[in-house]
């Protein structure tokens, strides 16, 4: 399996396949005015998302894939059904687009697919205070959604770093996680129901209920589907009373090993810190320079507690006691305060601007394997490129295991060499993760880049996804080539041999 790294390949003029005048006229007649963008500059803006490898290609003068043939701006589920039926009749492929903050290439057009920008569908439809649920349209901005809930005294408990630059539908489409996942779970734990337009143009309605026993979960076919099985239009999420009280603490551990042991015991003791973050030596050092406690104990751990005052107090007390049992010392709150201040910022921009090749890779590990997996990855990536920057932290912590979030960064160099090294690094990390029994992705999704490891991840399960795709979408019109599923005929640019 290989990825095309030819950065000179798709100049936009050569691969621009705009929708025909006849089709655009018919489409306009169906959807009405001001919902169709056809100009090249508009379409250019939708030719990328935040897949770092795609951005490297842009820096080198190429597109990640192609321009979309058109951009459509539906305002309702009914609009989207009409568009889907039209595209089905005319065999036009479609890609759903939220805010384009995905980092795996899930929205990149590879063969002139039409983009469906869902951001005009951006309203909260209902807050049910009795059931503790909110129903929201897929295109609503994450921060605006959370702030609207806060005004009513609620929270969704989903605070991804990208909250200001992502949509609620995007969270569900890529099976995302927020910084408070250790307490509230990932998005799949929060979605109670949803509506989605299927590739046959029909509406799927998974009614929101607390639990059901009617066969496998249909909503989970859509949550994480990245648009290949349907376009999510509405989601009903669990909400919580927003806590007015929160407290942080900072701990210095003597080693990663005891840090892992302490975090495992905290989670397996049924304690629920809102946030737990443990950093390796590299990432700890960046955040603790000149803080005395970290001279002898170099591993940083940040925790945040919230909720009812009595619960907060006891969870904080017991969590700290467990950490201290493993040799941790309480330290200055400065790293916690810095994290609070910068928790929703993006770190990649400056490196991209300065011609570095930076990326992040998040995988899931079990407690029994995490330390060995981390050490193996840290060693092996340096074999590929000794001057590589490599750092890791663990910030989604569960009773059974945790997410290892890694940053890799190559210095400025020849772009073709960097592209090849970058893919070698990904291959090494994902392979080692699988070797240690982990999952190749914790919350960024699969998109385009991760497709080639999907068979190793899912084994026979991949055949289930392929069969489902073929049955639901025989023309391969909904986001072709993503999630490890077949590419459209004629796809080019950053393509994987799925």
């Amino acid at each position: 399996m290989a990825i095309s790294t030819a950065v000179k390949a798709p100049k936009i003029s050569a691969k621009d396949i705009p929708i025909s005048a006849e089709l655009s006229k018919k489409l306009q007649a169906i959807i009405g005015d001001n919902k169709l963008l056809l100009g090249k500059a508009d379409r250019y803006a939708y030719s990328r998302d935040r897949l770092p490898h795609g951005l490297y290609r842009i820096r080198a003068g190429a597109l990640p894939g192609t321009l979309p043939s058109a951009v459509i701006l539906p305002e309702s589920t009914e609009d989207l059904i009409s568009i889907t039926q039209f595209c089905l009749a005319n065999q036009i492929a479609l890609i759903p687009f939220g805010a384009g903050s995905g980092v795996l290439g899930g929205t990149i057009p590879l063969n002139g697919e039409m983009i469906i920008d869902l951001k005009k569908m951006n309203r909260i439809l209902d807050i049910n205070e009795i059931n503790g649920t909110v129903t929201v349209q897929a295109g609503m901005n994450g921060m605006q959604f959370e702030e609207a809930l806060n005004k009513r005294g609620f929270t969704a408990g989903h605070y991804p770093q990208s909250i200001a630059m992502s949509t609620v539908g995007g969270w569900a489409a890529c099976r995302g996680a927020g910084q408070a996942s250790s307490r509230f779970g990932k998005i799949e734990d929060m979605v109670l129901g949803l509506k989605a337009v299927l590739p046959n143009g029909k509406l799927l309605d998974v009614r929101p209920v607390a639990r059901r026993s009617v066969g496998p979960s249909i909503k989970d076919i859509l949550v994480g589907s990245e648009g290949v099985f349907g376009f999510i239009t509405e989601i009903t999420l669990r909400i919580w009373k927003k806590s007015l009280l929160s407290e942080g603490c900072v701990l210095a551990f003597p080693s990663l090993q005891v840090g892992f042991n302490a975090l495992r015991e905290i989670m397996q003791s049924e304690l629920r810190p809102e946030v737990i973050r443990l950093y390796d030596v590299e990432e700890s050092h960046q955040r603790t320079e000149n803080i005395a406690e970290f001279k002898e104990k170099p591993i940083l751990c940040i925790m945040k507690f919230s909720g009812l005052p009595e619960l907060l107090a006891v969870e904080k007390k017991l969590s700290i006691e467990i950490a201290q049992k493993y040799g941790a010392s309480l330290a200055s709150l400065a790293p916690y305060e810095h994290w609070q201040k910068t928790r929703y910022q993006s770190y990649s921009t400056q490196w991209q601007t300065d011609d570095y090749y930076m990326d992040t890779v998040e995988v899931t590990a079990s407690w029994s394997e995490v330390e060995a997996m981390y050490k193996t990855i840290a060693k092996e990536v340096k074999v590929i490129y000794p001057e590589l920057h490599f750092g890791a932290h663990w910030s989604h912590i569960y009773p059974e295991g945790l997410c290892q979030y890694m940053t890799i960064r190559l210095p400025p160099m020849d772009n073709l060499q960097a592209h090849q090294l970058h893919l070698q690094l990904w291959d090494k990390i994902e392979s080692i993760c699988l070797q240690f029994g982990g999952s190749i992705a914790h919350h960024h999704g699969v998109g385009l880049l991760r497709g080639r490891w999907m068979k190793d991840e899912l084994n026979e399960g991949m055949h289930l996804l392929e069969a489902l795709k073929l049955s639901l979408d025989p023309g391969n019109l909904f986001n072709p080539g993503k999630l490890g599923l077949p590419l459209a005929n004629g796809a080019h640019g950053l393509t994987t041999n799925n």
Partner: protein
Amino acid sequence: MGEAIKSLKICAFCPNTCRSSYAATEALQIESQTPSALSFICLAVHQGNLEWDQETKDVLIRRNAVKASVGHCTYGLNMTQVLDAAVQSFNSQT
């Protein structure tokens, strides 16, 4: 133009951390009107990947989201000024 190019690069590679400053009204939420998208388009013009034609000029006029982003940029940029400088430079070259 050198300083403007640097700012355009920062904005184009930023995932619009200012995004929630745009009102949740319909017209502002089109991707190609966001500051990052307009910066991305300007860089493409600068690199010769997009023509400086009327269609491109019309896209760069749509500044509601850019205006809303002023004061909300993580990097302290005023993208209205940066985009104005870029447009002025493109116009002076044609």
